[in-house]
């Protein structure tokens, strides 16, 4: 089972990884966007970690909803409402739970993805975070349904996210800021797909010892 402490360490891990990759994400955004994705995500997750004490005794749903609301309130840009919606929707599906089965965790992530797609109206192939989130969720479902342990399943999800992220490179952007560049968006990796890959990478790393469940 995934405990609330696991969820918190996942968010802590992600906060750190975002900090380390701030310039990298910003650089990706400079090429086809407006050079703020790294700073945005960094600001948002710093705020999430600061707010963590407010959910000290709360359930996983509360933690994830706090995460989403904090992102919405501090990030701005496209990333704020999209990642905010991701975590708020994920949280709503696991309301009141103090631990999650792998399939419950998957369901939360899938609800998050659905929220992103509903808000952003993007589908795969448009060079957005959806291109990393979608294959990641799919791979996770496939692996779990095939009976693989969570840690292995998350490794596959992270790998699928990475492939999805890389697959954005040759894409022509049709959503988000990169779409304004038209043909010039081709050849660049999408910053949001990159931060989404990192989110799954962190999950895989954090839950590496969850082999048994």
């Amino acid at each position, binding site marked *: 089972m995934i405990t609330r402490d696991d969820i918190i360490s996942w968010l802590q891990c992600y906060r750190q990884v975002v900090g380390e990759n701030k310039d990298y994400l910003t650089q990706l955004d400079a090429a086809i966007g407006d050079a703020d994705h790294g*700073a*945005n995500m960094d600001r948002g997750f710093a705020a999430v970690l600061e707010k963590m004490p407010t959910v000290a005794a709360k359930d996983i749903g509360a933690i994830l909803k706090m995460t989403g609301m904090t992102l*919405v309130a*501090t990030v701005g840009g496209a*990333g704020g409402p999209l990642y905010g919606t991701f975590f708020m929707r994920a949280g709503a599906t696991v309301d009141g739970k103090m631990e999650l089965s792998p399939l419950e965790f998957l369901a939360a992530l899938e609800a998050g993805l659905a929220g992103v797609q509903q808000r952003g109206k993007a589908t795969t192939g448009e060079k957005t975070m959806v291109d990393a989130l979608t294959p990641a969720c799919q791979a996770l479902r496939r692996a779990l349904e095939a009976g693989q342990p969570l840690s292995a399943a998350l490794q596959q999800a992270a790998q699928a996210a990475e492939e999805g992220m890389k697959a954005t490179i040759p894409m022509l952007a049709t959503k988000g800021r990169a779409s304004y*560049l*038209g043909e010039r968006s081709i050849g660049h990796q999408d910053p949001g797909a990159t931060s989404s890959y990192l989110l799954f990478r962190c999950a895989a790393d954090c839950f590496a010892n969850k082999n048994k469940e």
Partner: protein
Amino acid sequence: MKKLINKPEDVVVEELQGIAAAHPDLVRVHFNPNYIVRADAPIQGKVGIVSGGGSGHEPMHGGYVGMGMLDAACPGAVFTSPTPDQMFEATKAVNGGAGVLHIVKNYTGDVLNFEMAAELAQAEGIEVASVIIDDDVAVQDSLYTAGRRGVGTTVLAEKICGAAAEQGRSLQEVADLCRKVNGWGRSMGMALTSCTVPHVGKPTFDLPEDQMEIGIGIHGEPGRTRMPLKTADEITEMLALPVINDLPFKAGDTVIAMVNGMGGTPLIELYIVYRKLAEICKAHGITIARSLVGNYITSLEMAGCSITLLKADDDIIKLWDAPVKTAGLRWGA
């Protein structure tokens, strides 16, 4: 990075403190969440108008808060859309019972954050109408993409709708007018240099000494194409013709014309561009009834310019001429 700033992370807050100190007669600045409201807000019975977007486009939007234009502006981090709580609080602060119009530039971030704010405000019983400005002809329009960016027409829409709200028109009427202005306005921009986002510390893109970017937005992003630097006359044609052909503006049309500096271009150059734009309009039989030449919607210190034409009927001209009293645009008051 050469900037008159203290710490990159303090740029927006310190700017807002400066605005508060400089214009106490015009505006109040609220911090946490950050927004700028008319000193006399809310005005009972008047439609409130709220806009907002990333910082770095000054005087837009904070410089347009005041009598005859915006009731509130919500500044995000530099080039980053503000968050919904800002627009939500600003909407409450300017609601005088006649509803609130959100003027939103078409960027995914702006649209999503304003959308969330509108949902929150509506949940509290405030009538909110949202109009999205998407006037940038450099971007191909399509139902299947994010669509066109909102650029120069935003300034004109804020002035014109502000005047209409001041007249006491209803939310529906002001929103319809805003959609009309958006439908009749077209813009295109270019850059001679990139700009430097404070927290990044270096230019967003490198542009060789002999190259320029055509079809840029207002976030320091590269444009649709890079090409060798041309003369002011050639550049003006490259911007004006796509604008004219897009609506299309026709012989006999009357327009409001704006030649806008991106922040680092001196006024002397903008007048050289205006001169050619006036020639081009004349050659097309288009009458420029009113004009703006200067820095109105900028990208930090970027050198470059944009051209906006807005087809104008008598109502629009009268609303344009109505008094406005803001830090960035002022006449008749």
